[in-house]
């Protein structure tokens, strides 16, 4: 029994008892226990299907344990632990409970053996996570949270609609590879794909990510960055491995965010764009679908969660001390926050895939898989994207925050809990990069890949240092775009500006047409208008109580109609 205790339940139990513990260090310490128990449970769970039951005539499996689920479950537990450590100082019950529920839902979704269970946890992540945005307490955060929630809930609604159709087609709701059905154009699977796509921030569906992550609280962003999108990657890897369209979607995903990232001023948004770009690598891996590629996706997700959290943590620590995360207002912080700077550089080196850092040993799996299966153009795009990542995440973030021109800010070093969380994460990034064997052994398939070859190391160093060279040259020649207080338009423009203005325009047109019409009518007959008002006004016909006679008449009419139909056929 104990070996099949569902790990998500640990988090839910934690969320239930946490508010009972007095606010303070004790509560923060206890919150750290739950991810540890969860990781231990996941580690010891036997493979196979557990806790199967029937629900509304459907076969439900709460726990489906295999290697793909386990690696995601483990990294989610690890990420939850690190984030909660980072958030030790937070004294806000809502955020603490939301974080636990969020992590629990994500882990529950990873082990879901069927689409219905997946749906429940899918919506669970959406609802729990939005509180991390709302917790910031500003009006902007409220609206952003609303937009985020709408997108996430929409994704869930589409998922359940897809699941219903999938059930109609196949007669079960098992969550397994749907690639064949998808290729055959089955509408249910297409909907499910679309739902995953929203959560995975596919191009044109991506903007909720850049919109919401920078709006959350400092600790909230760190937690957000770990779960939602990686859950989507997991779902794609589970449901649609080898779906070719994913390769192209992923390639576009790696490509366009780097342009935005270069000119973006809000550094947390820069990280959100680079998150999108990193997801692209994983999506490409899922699309290729070979064992090597899927291994690459899982490994990259694992490494990515760590270094992306580390970057968000370091920018968060700066935000925590200075109150801003804008490139235009920061600079020269290395003097007073040197440890944060070093951790940030470790994160930057990892995301840029420097040898001996974690990105190096995970990203190359996907690149090799692409080249191996002769996707040369994709390979070239990924290579370009790798250089681009280095450019904006690897150089831009540390450079503009900690070096560049001195902003005059002299904040204190980050608090101990943040430093500890960052230190642990940084250690893991380096450990995985230097000694990848343990991570490789966790991957869903056997690995016979050797990342450290002369060719690989030298070519990678060439790529990175010449990118750095390009940055230096452009910086010194003044071509590099300066950090400006501004925002850049993205797809959210469609629904934040274009949509409303189109609606305004339409309502203006219709409104003036209506006014014209009523004026015209008032000229012809005043009586008609009076009658119109009487039936459509605030006490309109539909809502008004009818005279008894009219009610009775309606019965008679309906009876007549029914009799007529009955005698007719």
């Amino acid at each position, binding site marked *: 029994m104990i070996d099949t205790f569902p790990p998500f339940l640990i988090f839910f139990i934690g969320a239930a008892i946490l508010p009972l513990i007095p606010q303070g260090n004790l509560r923060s310490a206890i919150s750290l226990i739950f991810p540890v128990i969860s990781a231990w449970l996941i580690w010891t769970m036997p493979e196979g299907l557990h806790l199967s039951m029937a629900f509304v005539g459907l076969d439900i499996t709460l726990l489906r344990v295999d290697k793909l689920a386990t690696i995601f479950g483990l990294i989610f537990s690890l990420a939850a632990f690190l984030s909660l450590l980072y958030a030790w100082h937070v004294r806000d019950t809502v955020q603490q409970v939301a974080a636990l529920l969020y992590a629990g839902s994500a882990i529950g979704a990873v082990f879901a053996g069927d689409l219905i269970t997946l749906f429940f946890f899918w919506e669970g992540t959406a609802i729990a996570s939005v509180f991390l945005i709302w917790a910031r307490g500003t009006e902007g955060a409220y609206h952003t949270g609303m937009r985020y929630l709408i997108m996430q809930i929409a994704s869930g609604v589409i998922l359940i609609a897809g699941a219903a159709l999938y059930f109609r087609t196949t007669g079960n709701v098992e969550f397994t590879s749907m690639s064949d059905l998808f290729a055959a154009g089955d509408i249910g699977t297409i909907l499910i794909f679309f739902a995953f796509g929203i959560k995975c921030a596919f191009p044109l569906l991506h903007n909720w990510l850049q919109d919401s992550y920078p709006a959350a609280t400092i600790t909230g962003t760190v937690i957000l960055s770990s779960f939602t999108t990686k859950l989507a990657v997991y779902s794609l890897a589970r449901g649609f491995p080898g779906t070719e369209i994913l390769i192209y979607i992923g390639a576009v995903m790696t490509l366009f965010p780097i342009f935005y990232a270069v000119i973006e001023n809000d550094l947390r948004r820069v990280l959100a764009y680079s998150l999108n770009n990193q997801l692209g690598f994983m999506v490409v891996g899922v699309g290729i679908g070979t064992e090597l590629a899927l291994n690459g996706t899982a490994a990259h997700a694992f490494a990515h969660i760590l270094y992306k959290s580390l970057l968000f943590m370091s920018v968060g620590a700066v935000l925590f001390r200075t109150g801003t995360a804008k490139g235009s207002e920061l600079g020269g912080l290395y003097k007073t926050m040197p440890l944060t700077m070093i951790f940030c550089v470790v994160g930057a080196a990892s995301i840029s895939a420097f040898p001996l850092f974690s990105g190096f040993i995970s990203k190359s799996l996907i690149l090799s898989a692409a080249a191996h299966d002769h996707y040369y153009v994709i*390979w070239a795009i990924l290579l370009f994207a790798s250089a681009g990542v280095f450019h904006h995440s690897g150089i831009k973030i540390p450079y503009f925050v900690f070096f560049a021109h001195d902003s005059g800010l002299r904040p204190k070093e980050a608090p101990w809990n943040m430093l500890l969380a960052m230190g642990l994460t940084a250690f893991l990034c380096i450990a995985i990069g230097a000694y990848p064997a343990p991570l490789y052994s966790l991957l869903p398939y056997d690995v016979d890949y050797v990342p450290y070859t002369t060719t690989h190391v030298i070519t990678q160093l060439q790529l990175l240092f010449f990118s750095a060279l390009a940055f230096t040259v452009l910086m010194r020649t003044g071509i590099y775009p300066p950090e400006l207080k501004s925002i850049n338009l993205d797809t959210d423009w469609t629904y934040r500006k274009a949509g409303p203005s189109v609606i305004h325009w339409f309502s203006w047109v219709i409104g003036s047409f209506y006014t014209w019409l009523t004026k015209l009518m008032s000229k012809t007959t005043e009586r008609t208008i009076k009658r119109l008002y009487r039936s459509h006004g605030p006490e309109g016909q539909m809502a008004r109580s009818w005279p008894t006679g009219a009610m009775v008449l309606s019965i008679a009419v309906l009876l007549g109609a029914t009799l007529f139909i009955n005698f007719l056929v």
Partner: protein
Amino acid sequence: MAKTPKDDPANYPALGRWLMFLDKKKNVDRIVYGLYALCTALFLADFLYYKKVYLDLEKFPGFYALYGFFMCAALVVCAKLMRRYLMRSEDYYAPHDVEAEEYPEDGLDRESVND
């Protein structure tokens, strides 16, 4: 730069004080020259070992170096051009939009800045 107690290097963390050498223009230049040298060395290294690769294209000496350099330069130039079309003021969507708002004071731990 105002000379307040906080600005006194003596109050910086030891690591920060040690890193102060970066403030000098000369040292920065040295690092840049180091980068140039390193890049040259990496470029030349391509002629010194057996390159085990998938594509013929990769065999081209210094392919990765040139690809990295020119693509990055192109990236920056493109992005800079995009700014012309995409850049808006911070109040574009709403006066209280997230970017335009001050971070809530109570969410900060700023005692070190003000005291």
